[in-house]
């Protein structure tokens, strides 16, 4: 794990915390077409988004490790 990846993960965790707590939450606490609140839908979508980004960050090959030598060549 490179420091840059750590920083990205930390930022993502911060974003997730922001998305999962008020006041952003209150924006979506409104009745939808059917009269039920949008809130759960928003939560699930934000949650899935965060997981998706985390998976992308963690599963792609360690880009830095490959970029590092290239930068040295210059």
């Amino acid at each position: 794990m490179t420091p840059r990846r750590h920083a990205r993960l930390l930022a993502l965790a911060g974003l997730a915390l922001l998305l999962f707590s008020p006041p952003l939450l209150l924006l979506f606490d409104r009745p939808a077409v059917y009269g039920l609140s949008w809130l759960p839908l928003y939560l699930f979508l934000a949650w899935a988004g965060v997981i998706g980004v985390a998976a992308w960050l963690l599963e792609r090959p360690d880009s830095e490790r490959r970029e590092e030598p290239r930068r040295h060549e210059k």
Partner: protein
Amino acid sequence: MRSDAVVLAVAFGYLALLFVIAAWADRRAEQGRSLIGSPTVYALSIAVYCTAWTFYGSVGRAAEYGPSFLLIYLGPTLVMLVGPMLIRKMVRIARAQRITSIADFISARYGKSDGLGALVALIALLGITPYIALQLKAITLSHAILTQYPAPAAETLVDAGFWTDKSFWVALVLAVFIILFGTRHLDASERHEGMVAAIAFESLVKLVAFLAVGMFTLFMLYDGPGDLFARAAAHPELAQALSLERVPGGALGWVGMLVLATLAFLTLPRQFQVLVVENVDEGHIRRASWLFPLYLLVINLFVIPVALAGVLLGDTALSPDSFVLTLPLAAGLDGLPLLVFIGGLSAATGMMIVETIALSTMVSNHLVMPLLLRSSRMRPGSRLARGRGELTGWLLGIRRVAIVLILLLGYLYHALIGDAYSLVTIGLVSFAAAAQFAPAMLVGLYWRGATRSGAACALIAGIMVWAYTLLLPGFAQSGWLDMALLSDGPAGIRWLRPYALFGLEGWDIYTHSLFWSLLANIGALIGVSLFTRQSRLEQTQAALFTEALHSELIHRTPLWQGQTTQGELRELLSRYLGTPATLRVLAEEEHQTGDADAARPASPTLVARAERALAGALGNASARVLINSVVRGEALDLDAVLSILDTTSQTLEYNRRLKQKSQELTTISEELRAANERLRELDRLKDEFVAMVSHELRTPLTSIRAFAEILRDSHGLPEEKRRHFLDVVVHESQRLSRLIEEILDLARLESGRLTLHPERLDLATLARRGVDAVQRVQEERGVQLEVKIPDSPAMVIGDPDRLEQVIINLLDNASKFAADEDGRVRLALERHKRHYRLSVEDNGPGIGEDDRERVFEKFHQLERQGESDAPARGRPRGSGLGLPISRGIVAHLGGRLWVEEAPTLGGACLIMELPQAPAEAAALGAAASGDE
């Protein structure tokens, strides 16, 4: 299908399957082909977080309190996102120090204190036993509903004996399972392969079961989500069901619950067990960091639909906690409810298995062992301590008894008190108790200054506030205490009311309790730590914990100074670990020294290894006591450890900075080298240029002088010849002045003193004029000129004289490099987007990729193949200044000039691109400003 016999057969059949899986996994592990060595299994084992509380309680919570049930899963998601940093650190520490449980972890961090370990174990026992009871309650309830539906599940427990309660037997079977697969090794820091495999399997079962109910509800009871949500919206009771209003405590309650779930996920003993102790490979954390949150997301997908459908069903659905079961039951199904029951059973048993192992390890290592070690009978030195290996049996026996007792305690709690609470209440009260470990653990991981006294005060203060604000009121509500405690406070002191401490009203009870307990907890930790001193062992441990990710070196450095013999060590180990384990520990040493002399002094490495082996079995605190009992003198050279730790972290920092500096230096030196090379090249070109210029200047001068001398000296020359000579002189002086003009142009371009007179002009006309000017010369050279200029005007802004000079130069240049036989040059003008492009190509050898930019360098001359015969064809060599000058002029006019592969003739192609002149009015302005 739902008869008691079938249900029992399926339930116990399922438990039997768990035994088979665990046994198989253990067998595989012995063969060295571990089943659990995969990140997916690791993620699934973490899913032991989803207990019966998730399985039944989430729906109940969603029905009553809207979306707040999600918080229990969003918290762990946050933790897992930082898992690659936080959990990795914990795993690394646990591996280095052979940590066996969260009690061991906290005790080890604060100087291997046995008091702290015991405190954590006690709190865990107090807080978590109700949680185990909750699982048993879920099993009893679900079984009752399954067999008695549609009659409401009668609480058979009170009337009938415990032997008719199925959960009692489940608890017994689990006790056997845990004893079989949870206490195989004495070393509790070793992985329980069979158990983890079974847990992972259970996680799959509960997921499948819950998804099955969800699909059934959404697509068989209703026509998809649209139908269900439309009907729910029409239902008056459900209009606000999903909004934040339903969440107890509103926005504040929301945040409180999120914090609670985040902390509890890390500190629940079973989560610590699967996350840290059972982790096989640090690398697995990476995959689990997103896979486990994904699992949580998927298992929660259908909670809301099921809850809505349950409420819509009305009274036949019984209590919200049982919607998962009653929905398929009400639809008259037989198979699905059974699957749901098994799912709930798997969720409950998974939790009980891991929790019981974790708790039993804590109880044996931190409550019982320290007491035994203190009693003189067990002291290693005492004469009463009998034959070797005997204590091994004792240790495992203690752990096994602890397992049975913990499960029994859970069962008693369930049977006697459990009915007073709903599922959710018990779960959250347990969460709040476990959250009290978080400050001591997390702050201790990152702040070296946290002291043992601070941690002890923090834990005590936190758990006292917890007990006062959550546990006592719970007792009051169950009817064992006067309800006046809640309404009027103890002895009528209103500001001490447990649910509104110091008058803090309007909060939900969990946020309220969490706030006060964490305030006391963290406050005590920091406050007391700042005013107490750490012992040296504490300092060392604190440094080892906080620097865990950097100080691998430390763990390999033996720093023991005390004296002991191999014989004494062997005796100690074999008494507590048994002969085989002792032999393993000692084997390496004997292998190295070649003999096993009992009187030989033990090496520092051996002593360290012995302590680690003991720590894995007995916990760090007891291991330390035991080692100190045989090692004379100061066992561990703590000052040395500390100084090494400090040096290590400093060295690391210096190292990092040095690396950075050297990297910068490398870059700079490379840049310098490149600049140097470039300068040399320029210098070389300049030398060549000077040589070339003097040569070029001398050639016309020489011939002018020669002819002038002939004219001066020979008087009898015929008129015709004289005239010819004079022509040559004139021609050569013209060439000379043109060369000088070029050099001057270049000098002006270089210094930026070249004055241009831009005006609106037609490039097409200009190109034709240029062609006319060179046509005759070209023909003389035997070069055929093709021209392709459109009839429409091509208006650009430019200096007509200079542009003509450029065009002539390009044509001249092309004809010089055209093929010797049948030389051809082609000039084309065309519009390209908002620019005009004038291209001049030839059918010569072309210009190589590498040389394409270099032809624009001043003083650069291309080596032309067959140079020697060029003058014969009457094609003069260029001065090497034409192209640089042309490019300078074009650039001044806002255009570009570059070389490409010739598209039609195959040689080189020079392209001049000039921007299209703007409309009339703007053109004037541009011309005016360009004039400056």
